[in-house]
């Protein structure tokens, strides 16, 4: 008995020793900074001296029309999310037919996942440019009169960023759904077909519910990407402009701190982004838990 408890103690000690490096690293570079961000969000801070403003720091920012303009951009990006999910779902169904060469196609679709946003942004910029492929394609289809210059208008530039974003999510999301489809219970389909159910009915009542978990996962991944992964794309493609046309919250954080020197405002915006993402994460956890019960 005594031996066992000393063994237990030794195990606990070694366990703490083993966990310590991760704990120290993550605390130093994520844990402490997020707490600091919380503190400095209530201040006016130039990186050296901080001046306590309290809650009025937030109130001031909420009165700033640019802040709402930026959030509107985030909102508009959200409109792209359903497309970034449904389109790859369709692709996954295509791939799942397992026609000739489907594995090669799968690799091709997933390939952009390996490429930097910087590279994607540089190519995308030329694609949407006045002399770019988009306009050539329009001309080739007899739609030359449309001649677009998306990147020069606020809404157009955001549209171009959103299209690029959707394009780059194709690989990730179709892989998620392909994984999901591999888990489908085929016997349910057979049974339903025997009962005379139509293809659509089978899809809606049997396939979709089984894919629910995967749809949720892809939703969370897509929203997280839209809100926190597009910095480099925006940096390269539009620099946040024209005007504030493509400045999303994550880009606004960078601009506030590193272009304007308002580190306090940047920290505050970071805290707001953190809460948005935390609500999303916790919401998903709760949803999953409800399903289990």
């Amino acid at each position, binding site marked *: 008995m005594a031996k066992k408890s000393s063994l237990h103690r030794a195990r606990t000690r070694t366990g703490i020793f083993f966990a310590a490096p991760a704990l120290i690293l993550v605390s130093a570079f994520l844990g402490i900074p997020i707490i600091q961000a919380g503190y400095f969000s209530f201040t006016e801070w130039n990186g050296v001296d901080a001046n306590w403003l309290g809650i009025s720091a937030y109130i001031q920012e909420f009165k700033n029309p640019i802040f709402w303009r930026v959030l509107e951009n985030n909102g508009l990006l959200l409109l792209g999310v359903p497309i970034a999910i449904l389109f790859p779902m369709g692709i996954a169904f295509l791939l799942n037919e397992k026609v000739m060469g489907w594995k090669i196609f799968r690799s091709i679709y997933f390939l952009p996942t390996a490429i930097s946003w*910087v590279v994607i942004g540089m190519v995308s910029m030329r694609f949407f440019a006045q002399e770019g492929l988009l306009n050539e394609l329009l001309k080739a289809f007899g739609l030359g009169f449309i001649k677009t210059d998306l990147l020069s208008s606020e809404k157009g530039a955001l549209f171009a960023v959103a299209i690029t974003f959707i394009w780059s999510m194709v690989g990730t999301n179709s*892989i998620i759904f392909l994984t999901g489809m591999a888990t489908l219970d085929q016997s349910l389909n057979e049974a339903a077909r025997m009962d005379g159910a139509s293809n659509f009915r089978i899809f809606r009542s049997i396939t979709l519910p089984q894919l629910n978990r995967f749809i949720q996962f892809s939703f969370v991944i897509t929203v997280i990407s839209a809100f926190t992964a597009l910095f480099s794309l925006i*940096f390269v493609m539009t620099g946040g402009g024209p005007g504030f046309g493509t400045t999303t919250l994550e880009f606004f954080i960078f601009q506030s701190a590193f272009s304007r020197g308002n580190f306090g405002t940047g920290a505050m915006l970071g805290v707001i982004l953190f809460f948005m993402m935390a609500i999303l994460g916790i919401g998903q956890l709760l949803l999953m838990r409800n399903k289990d019960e």
Partner: protein
Amino acid sequence: MRRKRLSLKTITAFISMCVLAVVMLYPFAFMINTSFKSKEQYFGQPGHSTASWGKLFKTLPVTQQLLNSTVVCAGAISIILVVSTMAGFAIAKMRSKASPVFFLGIVGAMLIPLQSIIIPAYINASKLNLLNGYWGAIFVYAALGSPFATFLMTSYFRGIPDDLVEAAIVDGLSYPKVFLKIGLPLAVPAIITVIVLQFIQVWDDLLVGLLFIQEPAYRTITVGLGALSAGRVTDIPVLMAGSLISAIPAVVVYLIFQRQLVNGLTAGIGK
């Protein structure tokens, strides 16, 4: 009748997939085609040349930047592996009252967006003089990658039966020995997944490198490119040659380790 309909469906599916493949591969085609043009050829003159490739290596420190990227990746990934295998093993196999709390903390850290901590982290790093070489970026990348890696390692080590570990302890092995001799060899697939995921992540990143590497001589290739394109000094064929060079290592890693990458991606869905 039924057969014919099926094959029509197959043909439609095949054609759609071909069209989509063209759409997904277009950036590569554009980069390759453009990089083999001189500036004049890009603006309409016919033909191809290697002039832009020559210019790329002559005017930009591409070789140095590729080396920098390699150093930063290697540094960050090494730290992530050491830290996450140890922590994962501790949570899964050296359970105590602290383990669930610690695990929750690690999972919670996965929720923190980079942009939320980057300002204080930048100021801290600058006070600690970490911005002059590689270390600032290496530590930030390591800290960002460690939570998910630890999560992955924990679920992997949980798959190893407790009996196996206990039997080894009874045989007189210490926990560190069990970790090195039994744990690590069994975790090799998870380790490869972490390496591949992190390599692509760190190699492709702009933001952390942009802020945490202040000396241009230490810049990674992606940051070098990002800075160039933002400067709007645009010799597009040269930029495309640079983009291609920067993309190749990650694409090669992807082509070899595709399966591990997919495993890592779908690990979050759970069972």
